């Protein structure tokens, strides 16, 4: 009865890599460059290695779970840019939709090294990371990761992550309200299974089907409105089957349609 909470406490108290077979996720900190140059940039990544059948979460986690969080601890003068999330997966299970990553993922950020950084000085980077891994059950985890540069550059996982970073939607998009639905018109022919992943929970009902219909040379994606008013803008990522990169949309919703 109390086994799971105790397991979680162990996970919270133990470095993730040492938590043993029970931990569905192990976490490591990697860097894309071997050294820190004065005035330079280092791409750093949180590499979550997730066991088969488990997933971790995107910044909007969907109907369950919680986003992975990364809190950098950096030397004075070194700053971290925004966290770069690879395009999330649409994960359906028992009637719920989760937004996240089945399997391993790298969440990256660009660290900026100040101009006056002494060239030979080691750079100590650290991050406090929390995540939730879910399969049939959910197990939260947390750890502090650290890395000292110079270190071995690990470019391959970071390049793989970057290949799945969303890009802006390169076209024209418009949305209008239609009763309990939002109709998103896009100027491209998009295949069945195309989905909009909302940036914020509640703006789109994830457990309702999203229908794509052809309209001239474009497409109309019909979304069921969620319980929270999107307050004038529909923001999200367009997931197109077969495309590893989602496309970012930020479209005003006209009032009084």
């Amino acid at each position, binding site marked *: *009865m109390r086994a*799971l909470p105790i397991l979680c406490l162990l996970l919270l108290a133990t470095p993730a890599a040492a938590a043993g077979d029970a931990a569905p996720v192990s976490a490591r900190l990697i860097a894309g460059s071997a050294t820190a140059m004065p005035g330079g940039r280092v791409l750093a990544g949180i590499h979550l290695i997730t066991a088969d059948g488990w997933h971790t979460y995107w910044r909007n986690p969907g109907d*369950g779970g919680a*986003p992975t969080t990364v809190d950098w601890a950096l030397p004075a003068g070194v700053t971290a840019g925004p966290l770069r999330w690879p395009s999330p997966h649409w994960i359906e299970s*028992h009637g719920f939709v989760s937004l996240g990553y089945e399997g391993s993922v790298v969440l990256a950020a660009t660290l900026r090294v100040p101009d006056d950084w002494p060239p030979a000085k080691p750079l100590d980077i650290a991050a406090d990371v929390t995540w939730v891994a879910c399969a049939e059950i959910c197990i*939260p985890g947390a750890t502090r990761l650290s890395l000292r540069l110079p270190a071995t550059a690990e470019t391959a996982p970071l390049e793989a992550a970057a290949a799945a970073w969303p890009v802006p939607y390169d076209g024209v998009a418009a949305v209008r309200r239609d009763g309990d639905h939002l109709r998103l018109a896009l100027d491209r022919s998009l295949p069945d299974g195309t989905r909009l992943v909302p940036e914020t929970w*509640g703006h789109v009902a994830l457990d309702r089907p999203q229908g794509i219909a052809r309209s001239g040379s474009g497409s109309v994606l019909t979304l069921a409105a969620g319980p929270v008013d999107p307050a004038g803008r529909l923001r999200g990522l367009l997931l197109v089957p077969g495309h590893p990169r989602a496309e970012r949309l930020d479209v005003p919703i006209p009032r009084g349609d």
Partner: protein
Amino acid sequence: MRPVLMLLALLPWSAVVLAAPDIDAPAPDFVGTATNGETVRLSDLRGRRVILEWTNHLCPYVGKHYGGGDMQTLQRETTGAGMAWLSVISSAPGTQGHVTAAEADALTRDRDAAPTAVLLDPEGAIGRLYGARVTPHMYVVDEAGRLRYMGAIDDRPTDDRADIPGATNHVRAALADLDADRPVGSPVTRAYGCTVKYR
């Protein structure tokens, strides 16, 4: 009220039926079975505020709020003020959090919890009626039987008990808004926790 439950009972549960109810509309009526075998009908509680709490004692997020006594304190605050608190367990048999009536009563005793009743919902009918997604998922129904709040217990979506003292408890905030006869400030929030283990 409308015979909503009878209608839902005819639908195949393998299909996804998780429509969230509407805020400020009449809360969907239901008849549940409490651990003492008695039936609890929501509409019989008209005239009192009702708090619905979806729960699963093995979920770490539920543990966060029970482990330090915070959920129990809220239960005593509200029931002490005449409100009804219904804890609902929608875990299907064989899934995490499913309990017998005796086990549910033992959990109430062991955790020093103070709900008005614990409803056993192993078929998930009440959970689906309310679109309960996670544990804990909280709902507040006012004296007139209208749904006034649904969502998270608080604004810190973590499993860390240390986050509770600095958090805004959404249920307390909604009740304070009702006390002051003003609209609930955040009537819908994203509930956080483990997904409800429906059949």
